[in-house]
């Protein structure tokens, strides 16, 4: 069994309706990589085209559970990226997980929050690596990571009052 299939089956109990969204993914392969929000679930993506094996979309509430499963599976947190979908009024947070050697498997975990209420739970309790990455995302997007021990600016000046990667930021 390929590693991504093992990871997918470990993640699938978190998404009771995941099988339906998976069917959608296989029918319209174009929909896999479209930046539009889709229903929570796990979709297998073509590695040679996208660079990741699994694309997991989850609700912010499910984030801790997903990260917990990936921690048990031996993954490490590679990066956290924010994306501002200004027209849709949403912020997306992309977490990339990867394995340190052995099998190849990159898991992209995505979640969406309203721009007006950008709050997601912190992963610092599971992955210490999340500490700085979350501070950076807070710095650039104003995303509030609930429960973070020290959510302060990391790269911008401490007295900055702006979040420069928001699409409506004007210097």
């Amino acid at each position, binding site marked *: 069994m390929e590693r991504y299939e093992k990871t997918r089956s470990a993640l699938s109990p978190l998404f009771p309706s995941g099988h339906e969204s998976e069917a959608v993914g296989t029918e319209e392969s174009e929909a896999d*990589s479209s930046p539009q929000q889709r229903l929570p679930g796990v979709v297998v993506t073509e590695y040679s085209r996208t*660079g990741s094996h699994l694309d997991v979309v989850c609700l912010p509430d499910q984030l801790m559970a997903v990260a917990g499963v990936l921690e048990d599976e031996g993954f490490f947190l590679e990066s956290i990226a924010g*994306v501002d979908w200004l027209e849709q009024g949403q912020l997306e947070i992309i977490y*990339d997980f990867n394995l*340190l*050697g052995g099998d190849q498997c990159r898991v992209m975990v995505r979640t969406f929050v309203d721009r007006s209420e950008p709050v997601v739970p912190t992963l610092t309790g599971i992955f210490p690596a999340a500490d700085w990455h979350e501070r950076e995302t807070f710095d650039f997007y104003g995303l509030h990571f609930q429960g973070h021990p020290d959510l302060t600016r990391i790269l911008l000046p401490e007295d900055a009052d702006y979040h420069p990667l928001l699409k409506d930021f004007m210097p």
Partner: protein
Amino acid sequence: MTVPISPRHDETFVLNLGPQHPATHGVLRVKLTMDGEYIVKAEPVLGYIHRMHEKMAEAGTFAQFMPNTARMDYLHALAFNHGWALVVEKAAGIEVPPRAEYIRVITVELNRIHSHLLWWAANLLDLGAFTPLLYAFDDREQVIDLLERVTGSRLTYSYMRFGGVLNDIDEDFIAGTRAFLVRLRERMPVFYHDLVTSNIIFIKRVKDIGIITPEMCRRYGVTGPVARGSGINYDVRKDEPYSVYPHFDFDVPVFHECDSMARYMVRVQEMEQSMRIIEQALDALPDGPIMAKVPKMLKPEAGYYYSAVETARGLLGHRLVCNGDKNPYKLKLRSPTFSNLSLFGEVTQGMLLADALAFLGSLDLVIPEIDR
């Protein structure tokens, strides 16, 4: 009048290291809470050379971002060129001619040797050894001259293009590179190993200093020579092969001691492996074009793309989000030392200040790459 001074362990003070400090090799600041000579708490303070490269990526076209890539990790700039070229080629579906990929690998590996040479020199300088710097810079100069020949720059290269490379390499470059390999292999045992690797003063400074366990590497997302010095056999060139690396026979040096000495040994041995790759690539260099036919204005399909390369410091990832427009909708740069440095606080707890500086050097930091 003399007052007897008794040591008090309940009294700490804050020591400010940097942002202008020779041992941080750039503008890194560390706020240290000290109990005498011992570190109670160390907090790296970042951002002194933050330039918001990710915003610049969104503001320009894909090609316009290429010069920026070299200005993050200025010591292994070609790997950053390579990573950016690979992710855009993946998004836009561009096939690169084999000759171009071979040239990319040759130049990237030369650049890796250069980066390790400079790290070697600077790390020893931190430890108080001045002479090795002169030898390493002598060798490094040869690499820079070679790369200047083909790329036109000495440090901040903007050599790669989507679909290939800017200039072809010529006979002089090939002969010069072969001569350099012979020269470095001759000098390596004497100037590097006899003088430093087996030097008792050096060994005493780095052995058993800065222990990073394999589990810690995973929790903090540590990659590159730091992880390989902790017994983790992970190299993107082997584990997530890209470019033409699968064509070459090379080893991944792994050491299990988890200390600064292990990280030193990994880097020194990696230079030899890079030399092996360059040799094989020069021997098997295919003929043909160095550029694919690529449209002037790229508009990759909307979607999420990721590409990882192994720089001299570890895994460099590009997370690219496209919306079908002519500029990147979002680019996240996952730089290796940002993650590698994040464990500094945990490792240095209870460490002597002098040891912490020896440890900091063994992490091989390039600050603009952390701050981006």
